[in-house]
């Protein structure tokens, strides 16, 4: 199969969606971030000049406009840019888009996609490094997607744009250059279905987004030590493939959860709680979490590295868990 970059896979999904459905429009167009891959958006701009709207720097209004347009029957893909700025649009996100379906007793649909680039990207410091997906998971009514591979991002983005629900689509700036196998044809990946990125017998490592790659690196290191790691990527938080998580833990009996959201009330915390609550008997050791500590993200590289969930920290957590008696 041909290999293309994660960024190119996003562009293919956007292009197919725009060509397929005239109700789809892009509001904001820095979907690929500000890195060199951004030029991959140029052909889309050229092909659909009247379908791409570059809005003013008004995140609250832009999020709100996306929600209202979706209620009126359009299917906007709204790019918020750096995920830290989504907080400016928090009220329409959690107070309008997320709740309209329920408040209307199922009579309104809100088919909008909110796209944002999250995470520790190198020098983003405290205001350009946030991973707000755990906070959004705490608000009922939003589908949350965070792919980790070019194949997944293409299929999941196609599903997100076809979805009749408000969907938060979280990409990581550092994923953009990653290459992988991607079919040329159109396909979708259903929400709520996780993926085993590396099968293993001894321990399950659940990882999300860019941290999946750290977990795969850790698994290689640990394989040399005789520890066979299974790396599981839930791909979507809402809906969550809880069955597959428990199935993996039932085979390995040990769990490490590695993720870039903050430790307190983060993704690792919620996934750990789910396994502890529903799979206590499956566990042969306490669950370990590798997450971002609860400090504002610092700028200087040694400081940023100190709080970044990486392969070395995942290796340490796995070794501790394997050694627990």
């Amino acid at each position: 199969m041909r290999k293309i970059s994660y960024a190119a896979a996003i562009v293919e999904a956007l292009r197919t969606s725009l060509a397929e459905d005239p109700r789809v429009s892009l509001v904001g167009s820095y979907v690929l971030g500000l890195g060199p891959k951004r030029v991959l958006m140029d052909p889309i701009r050229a092909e659909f000049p009247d379908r791409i709207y570059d809005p003013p720097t008004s995140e609250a209004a832009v999020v709100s406009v996306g929600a209202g347009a979706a209620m009126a029957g359009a299917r906007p893909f709204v790019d918020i840019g750096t995920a830290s700025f989504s907080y400016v649009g928090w009220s329409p996100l959690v107070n309008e888009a997320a709740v309209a379906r329920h408040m209307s007793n199922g009579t309104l649909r809100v088919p909008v996609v909110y796209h944002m680039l999250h995470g520790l990207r190198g020098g983003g410091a405290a205001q350009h490094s946030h991973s707000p997906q755990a906070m959004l998971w705490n608000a009922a009514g939003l589908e949350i997607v965070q792919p980790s591979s070019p194949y997944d991002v293409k299929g999941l983005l196609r599903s997100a744009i076809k979805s009749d629900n408000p969907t938060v689509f979280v990409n990581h700036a550092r994923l953009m250059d990653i290459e992988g196998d991607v079919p040329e044809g159109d396909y979708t990946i259903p929400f709520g279905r996780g993926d085993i990125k590396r099968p293993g017998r001894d321990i399950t490592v659940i990882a999300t987004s860019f941290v999946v790659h750290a977990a795969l690196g850790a698994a290689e290191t640990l394989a040399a030590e005789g520890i066979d790691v299974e790396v599981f990527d839930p791909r979507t938080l809402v809906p969550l493939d809880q069955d597959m998580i428990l199935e993996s833990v039932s085979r390995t009996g040990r769990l490490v959860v590695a993720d870039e959201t903050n430790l307190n009330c983060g993704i690792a915390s919620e996934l750990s709680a789910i396994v502890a609550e529903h799979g206590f008997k499956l566990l042969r050791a306490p669950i370990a979490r590798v997450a971002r500590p609860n400090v504002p993200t610092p700028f200087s590289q040694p400081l940023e590295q100190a709080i970044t969930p990486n392969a070395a920290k995942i290796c340490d957590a796995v070794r501790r868990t394997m050694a627990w008696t």
Partner: protein
Amino acid sequence: MTTKALDRQTSLSIFERMLMIRHFEEAVIQLYKQGRFVSHYHIYIGQEATGGAVLEALGEKDLICTTHRNHGHIIGRGCDPNRAMAEILGRATGFNGGRSGTLHICDSNRGFLSTSAVVGGCAGLATGAGFGLKVKREPQVAVGFFGDGSLEEGLVIECFNIAALWKLPVVYVCENNSSGAIGPQQGGYPTAITATDSFTRLPAAYGIHCLKVDGTDMGAVYTATVEAIRRCRPGNGPVFIEAFTTRWPGSSPLWPELATVTDLNDAWDPARITGPHADWIRRHDPLLRAARELVATGHASRDELLARDRDARARIATAANFAIESPMPTPASVYDHVFA
């Protein structure tokens, strides 16, 4: 008296909407006093000419977004008062199965977007609806109702910018009901806290066409709305209407009070109006004003209006009974309708 400009059918249709709103709201307060529902709530009395006339001017497929003070827009649009009242009482038969309550009633079959009780939220959704209409190349307009307090929210100002930039078919209807409000210093409900001396300066800064009208004058509101729709339907961009009303004394306290009770005969016999709020009834009650003008212009007789009044009261009494007798939703249904 701009009611002269309206034909008989239009002015009576607006009056009908106003009557239904008025009696609905009086019934809501009584039901609250009887302990039939919990929650803070907001009453539309005093603004009926604005809602009634704007909704008269709208087409069947136009889109509407309203606020915590939505009862008047729901009833004024002609939505089923039984289901609206049932929603306020949290019943399974309500428009939203008891999920929205008084603050968020939504009848999506009549063009309502999600009703936002977040101040200014509806302006954003209405702007988005305008964007949706533009994307879909549909000829409708989106109307966003909100109070003057919404102009204290940054999101609304941002939306003016976007709607003007993209020439969206949005009619912003700012119902300025701050006149006569007592505000928190006197223990009343909050009212405008702003440094501007004119709210239209804000949309006007973005080149948005602005109209100011007396919100108790149904003819003026109707004429302004028709002009606004005529301008924005063909793609000339948004219009902002500011409709001024004097706060109904019952909406001045923190919790609504039935401060005045409507008697249509007062319209023609001001001498019989007494009590602490006689001035509001004589000078600022839009329903009595409309009744006076309908008779003065020869569009209707007193008896005809009184008969319509009795009929509206009866329909609202039916709605209240329907709501009271309707079942509550079952707890097991709480997980329904989170996702499509």
